[in-house]
């Protein structure tokens, strides 16, 4: 009798014979419904925030199901659903366009050590008053 050490796929790897003749079948397309991205508005006038996605055959059902997934608890004013295919985005290999120039520290908030200056000013003032 074989003993299974663990059902965790990171521990017990699937034994796929690299020599096998028949290639593994890819999953058929549209094995699941398409997805819709869900945007949640918590207060009137607030931005709609992206909260996740739902599987659905069309916009109407996506909105219907999004209501129970993302607006059952807490306050909700409205929801948007957007077909994931309609989201236009950067390619993964183009992430370098977001690279910043690290030497231009003055463009970052963290470069301004205001707190240190305030502390120094306070210290100087206290010393001045005791003299």
């Amino acid at each position: 009798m074989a003993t299974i050490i663990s059902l965790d796929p990171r521990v017990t790897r699937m034994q796929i014979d690299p020599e096998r003749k028949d290639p593994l079948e890819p999953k058929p397309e549209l094995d699941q419904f398409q997805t819709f991205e869900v945007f949640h508005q918590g207060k009137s006038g607030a931005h709609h925030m992206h909260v996740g996605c739902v599987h659905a055959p069309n916009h109407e059902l996506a909105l219907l199901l999004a209501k129970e997934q993302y607006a059952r608890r807490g306050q909700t004013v409205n929801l948007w659903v957007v077909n994931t295919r309609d989201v236009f985005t950067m390619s993964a290999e183009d992430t370098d366009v977001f690279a910043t120039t690290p030497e231009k520290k003055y463009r970052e908030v963290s470069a301004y050590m205001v707190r240190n200056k305030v502390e120094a000013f306070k210290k100087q003032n206290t010393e001045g008053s005791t003299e």
Partner: protein
Amino acid sequence: MNTQALTDLCYRMADDELILAHRHSEWTGLGPLLEEDIAFSSIAQDKLGHAQALFTIMHDLGGEPDADTAAFMRDELKMRCSHFVELPNGEYDFSLVRHFLFDVAEYVRWTALVRSSVEPLANLARKIHGELKYHLYHAQTWMVQLGANGNEESHARMQSALNEAWPYALGMFEPGEFEDALIADGIFIGEAVAQQRWLELVAELLQSSTLMIPTQVEPIYGGRKGHHTEHLKPLLDEMTEVYRIDPSAEW
């Protein structure tokens, strides 16, 4: 106020909600897709909440037992649910059709109860209006989706489930013992008027579904008088199993 008439009405409504909530909850974890599983389970939970609220009203106004005792300690003969909610789930098509036909009726009842002379009932009707509206929207969207926007199989399944459900759905409107008193005291519109409004709303909501409403069908009565299908007893046994081990336990 006619307490006897009010209690009879509330038990009929509460038992329908309680038993259908249990049937719906049997889909939890087995729904056709994750999102629908969650939505349907949460609708079941809402129904359970409606039953609890009705039991509490009877407890406060009619001196009936508290909600837990009313829900878990009555046997079959004391139950006033219609046969419609007792039927096993079958496949998802039947569950959706039952959800639709029941929720249209529920919507009609509670919309009328907003103007009930019994203040706590009218308040409850106002409180749950939004939930009922979502349940109706959920049910109708699926009826139209699978009736008109699905394929031949989905249409055929929905139509046959609708035909199967219809005589039982009509049974929801089996008159109670105190119809005249309920109407005279302004507590409820009565089953005959409720059924008429239900028929009109079902027809309106199914307009774009391409599904045909069955005609000339005899209703299946009995539930409101304590006569039930063979499906109710096993359901009650399962539902009350844990509670009855120790009814005095603190939860």
